[in-house]
């Protein structure tokens, strides 16, 4: 039912999702992110122009989640084990994409950075260097966030904490239902095939709902922030996404032979002294 709803639209062209994703990523890293950064650092840029870039970026992210819905309807299993994602990205995927908490944690970090830097009265936060070169409205975007904004962020987080675990539970229950069906008569292959197909259908719903959650968190964040705050937030999201595909970092990551699970205590001690 879900599949037919998603595929009811007329298809003009058919592209493997991996190809779509590469094109989408290229647009993000080569066009939209540089444009947004340029608008953020421009002293003369009016808020209306910044708003256009914010909208473009938001639309780009939404279009990705729409396409991911369709990819899930076509083959949810490939979305859950995506071959278009590299080894650096895969461990951080939850139901086919980034965890929705990631967006609220990022938002929270803007709020917390500001409160910590204002309390210490020292510009030592991560974005400190940038703020010196940024025009005043951008640099001040997250200073003294309103109580209303803090309250709305709390509300978004609260909603997420209710919905995300429920989605994970649905995925788990779908797996349990499969083995309940299969366990009794597992030698009848047709029955097993039907049970797996039924589970895939349920998982399509789970992934589509996870995407809906991610889309709605992004939309909520943009609705509670002003244009400067939204621009900085989306710039951080896009920078994070692009970072996963940084060629130098990826090369270094792939070439690194040092095991991560040996001399863990020594490494922790070294890190804590740095």
């Amino acid at each position, binding site marked *: 039912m879900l599949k037919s709803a998603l595929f009811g639209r007329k298809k003009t062209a058919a592209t493997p999702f991996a190809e779509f994703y590469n094109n989408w990523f290229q647009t993000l890293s080569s066009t939209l992110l540089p444009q947004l950064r340029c608008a953020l650092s421009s002293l003369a840029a009016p808020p209306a122009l910044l708003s256009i870039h914010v909208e473009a970026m938001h*639309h780009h992210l939404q279009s990705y989640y729409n396409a991911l819905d369709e990819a899930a309807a076509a083959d949810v299993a490939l979305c859950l084990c995506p071959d278009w994602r590299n080894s650096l990205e895969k461990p951080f995927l939850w139901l086919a994409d980034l965890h929705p908490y990631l967006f609220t944690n*990022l938002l929270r970090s803007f709020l917390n950075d500001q409160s910590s830097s204002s309390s210490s009265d020292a510009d030592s936060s991560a974005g400190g260097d940038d703020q010196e070169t940024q025009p005043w409205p951008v640099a001040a975007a997250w200073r003294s966030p309103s109580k209303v904004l803090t309250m709305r962020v709390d509300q978004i987080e609260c909603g997420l904490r209710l919905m995300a675990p429920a989605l994970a539970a649905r995925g788990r229950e779908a797996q349990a239902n*499969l083995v*309940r069906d299969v366990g009794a008569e597992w030698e009848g292959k047709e029955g097993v095939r039907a049970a*797996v197909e039924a589970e895939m259908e349920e998982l399509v719903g789970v992934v589509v709902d996870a995407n809906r959650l991610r889309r709605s968190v992004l939309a909520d964040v943009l609705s509670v922030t002003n244009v400067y705050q939204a621009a900085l937030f989306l710039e951080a999201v896009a920078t994070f996404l692009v970072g996963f595909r940084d060629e130098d970092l990826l090369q270094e990551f792939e070439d690194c032979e040092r095991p991560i*699970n040996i001399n863990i205590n020594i490494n922790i001690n070294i890190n804590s002294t740095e």
Partner: protein
Amino acid sequence: MRRTASQPLLRHFLEDDEFVEHLKPFRDVDPLTRQLSCISLPKRDSKKSCEEFWCEKYGAWRQEQRSGAAKLKKQLKARWAIQKLIDEQLGRYKAHYGRAMGPTKMSDVAELLMPKWAPPHEAAAVFWLGDWRPSTVLELLRSIARSLDVWDPVGVERALSHLINDVRNEEAVIDEEMTEVQSNCVLHLPFGRAQNDPNWPGLRSEFRKVHRVIVKAQNLRIKALEMVVKKVLNQSDAAEFLVAYMGIQDVINEITTKFKTRNAVLVPLKNS
């Protein structure tokens, strides 16, 4: 002569002729003689022959006992052989799950979570953090227990319910830990908000956290399987379960491998 209470019942099972034939020895023999013949006391005329008689009797008894013990020994050997096979099978699962404990590079973590050896549909259908979800294995056992005709179905069902509950709770704790890493990586990865941090410690430390989660998941898989095989089921049920589990893994693998070739991911390209 009055019949004893058992006679009508006995007659119920025998035809009339058979019944009469059956009673004949009891009618012909005096009860006292019958009793004595049962004891079979040896005659007192020869002490030697008496001893020989007892020796023979004792020898025959010993022989029967020996033969019984030999049969038991054979059965015990069969049980030990089954136990050995069960342990070997468990050992293979342990070795498979334990591969995460060996030296692991950062780039190996993705392979542990989404192994290339598993068809994507199999992974989606039954996997959690890189292999069969422990509570799913237990649910599977609950389902096949009916067809296995287990020795104590009520006891097994009760024990499984408790175990599934406990394992699900442990899965939830591990999920929580993974969620923590996945939702905070935006703050800790070198290209996240903490861009001024040195690259490698941030990246390595995030992958180390993910690896710890995987190791916990693998340990839970081993624990769940051991609990089922060693605590919940008796030996023969455990052996049957391991056979059925392997069979089901094979069937799901075979079916989902075909899924992969049948379904292509085709979506319309959208110009954003």
